[in-house]
């Protein structure tokens, strides 16, 4: 889809922004370019729409050398989102979004109708259409920036640190929205960030750059965390990559046990027979009520009479990852994570040690997959 062949960018002052980059980006996925500042990730992105011209090598889009296309024409077919949105302050929100359709010669009416659709798509109320950019918050402006990039429904979207100028809460919101949008649109997206967490959260594939414009590793997030190519990548993805990897294991794969789960109608004597320091008390629909310490149980009666410690938080077997399960285990008074199904009924519990078994299993699967398709569908090939 997007292919770099031995592409370099050198500046007259002797600095090398990008050094002999060869990379092939698959159609329909999100590729994240990540690395420390000065690693050439933004330059790489901007070479795709000819905002920067390479000194050597070829960039091609769908098999065609991009130098064959007149730059403005090329750019109208590629969505472009930048850090501070870069909206046109003198135009209304609606006209900002309609920019590319208008450049392409659509009628004003058709362009505005399209813009109104996009405004809704990025989750902004239609009252915003008549406002001006300086009346919007940073997060709202960034949504408009995304809508403007989608104006003419381009197959490719380039995003240069689009969420880094907003506060963490808004950023998380925009990221979630972005993932939802991509599920709907299936664009080929190239996304630049310096934030490895963002890269892992959003990327289908991640290209890690090192200072001096060299590609250090190009891989899926799972494999990047499991098998960093060298010390630089290992250092860049961080000390807690072990825990991050749990994000890629589905909670449904976690082995759960039934042992300490008891209905509130059980006699306390029953709780003493399970040989656990804590029992999880559930109601008749198996919804969790709380933890009861076996040592603190009354002598007689049922578990309904027992003092309960708060539950902490549970994890869902549908949707959550093993990372959420581990977090639940660490925060639970009993050190046991409670797994619930879609209805909120308890399926079983697991402790941190049991969770680590999932990790080992996932690793074995990943290693097998890596051995099986080495070179075949490794994204970008050659670099690893």
């Amino acid at each position: 889809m997007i292919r770099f062949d031995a592409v370099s960018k050198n500046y007259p002052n002797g600095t090398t922004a990008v050094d002999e980059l060869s990379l092939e980006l698959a159609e329909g996925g999100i590729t994240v370019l990540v690395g420390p500042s000065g690693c050439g990730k933004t330059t790489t992105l901007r070479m795709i729409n000819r905002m920067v011209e390479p000194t050597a090598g070829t960039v091609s889009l769908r098999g065609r050398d991009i130098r064959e296309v007149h730059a403005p024409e090329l750019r109208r077919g590629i969505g472009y989102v930048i850090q501070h949105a870069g909206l046109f302050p003198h135009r209304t929100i609606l006209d900002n979004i309609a920019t590319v359709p208008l450049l392409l010669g659509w009628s004003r009416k058709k362009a505005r109708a399209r813009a109104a659709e996009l405004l809704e798509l990025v989750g902004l109320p239609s009252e915003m259409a008549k406002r001006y950019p300086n009346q919007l918050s940073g997060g709202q402006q960034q949504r408009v920036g995304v809508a403007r990039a989608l104006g003419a429904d381009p197959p490719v979207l380039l995003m240069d640190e689009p969420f880094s100028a907003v506060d963490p809460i808004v950023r998380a919101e925009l990221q979630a929205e972005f993932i939802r949008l991509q599920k709907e649109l299936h664009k080929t997206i190239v996304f630049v960030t310096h934030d490895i967490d963002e890269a892992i959260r959003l990327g289908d594939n991640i290209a890690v750059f090192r200072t001096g414009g060299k590609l250090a590793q190009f891989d899926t997030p799972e494999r990047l965390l499991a098998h960093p190519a060298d010390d630089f990548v290992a250092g860049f993805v961080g000390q807690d990559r072990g825990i991050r990897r749990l994000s890629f294991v589905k909670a449904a794969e976690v082995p759960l046990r039934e042992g300490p789960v008891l209905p509130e109608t059980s006699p306390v004597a029953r709780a003493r027979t399970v040989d656990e320091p804590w029992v999880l008390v559930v109601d008749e629909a198996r919804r969790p009520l709380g933890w009861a310490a076996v040592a603190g149980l009354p002598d007689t009666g049922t578990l309904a009479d027992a003092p309960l410690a708060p539950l902490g938080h549970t994890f869902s077997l549908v949707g959550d990852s093993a990372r959420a399960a581990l977090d639940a285990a660490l925060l639970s008074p009993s050190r046991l994570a409670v797994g619930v199904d879609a209805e909120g009924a308890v399926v079983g519990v697991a402790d941190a040690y049991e969770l680590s078994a999932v990790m080992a299993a996932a690793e074995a699967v990943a290693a097998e997959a890596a051995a099986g398709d080495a070179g075949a569908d490794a994204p970008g090939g050659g670099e690893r």
Partner: protein
Amino acid sequence: MNDLLNQIRLVADWLTSSKQWHGDDGIPHRLLEHLTYSGLSLLFAALIGLTFGLLVGHTGRGAFAVASVANLARAVPTFGLVVLVVTLAGLSTTPVLVALVALAIPPILINTFEGVRGVDPDTRDAARGVGMTEWEVLVRVEVPMALPLILLGLRVAAIQVVATATVAAYPGLGGLGRFIVDGLSRNDYELVIGGSTVVVVLALVVQILFTALRRFVVSPGLRVSASRT
């Protein structure tokens, strides 16, 4: 206090006497002459100032030259320039126009240049990035965003030209300056103050026109007071 009241009465009498409103020496005729000089000068100055201001602001090439030329032009006294041009070119409309054009170019040139150059680089980058040609970047983004400053330059130039066009009377070319020059030579202060008042009123009218124009052509999105919601 009485002096001031007297003078106001004198000016009022002068302004309202019927002979001021008829013939070649009347206010309407002189005003028309004045407006013709001013309008033509402003038109030429705008053509030159806007063209170079936009060009240099957009490309960034020649910024130093713009600043130097503009500063140099501002340092040349208009009256001296008129006398110089009249001496060299003889008594006709041209020298006055040349002097007024030279006077009006600097504010237009500098403000246009600053307005275009001051456009946020992110906005300019986005304009190119979405696929605007250089011409489209200039016309659709830079000019509308620079408009407040461009209008400021035109307004400053217009007011200076309207006020300075009075010098056209010295080489005998008429305009509202006629009243002032004649009044001074005849020690007729009534005439001097009356003529000056008309010039002041004209400058105020220009100011009001530009304020109205600004309301009309500058995007509400560029007003600093736009409230955040």
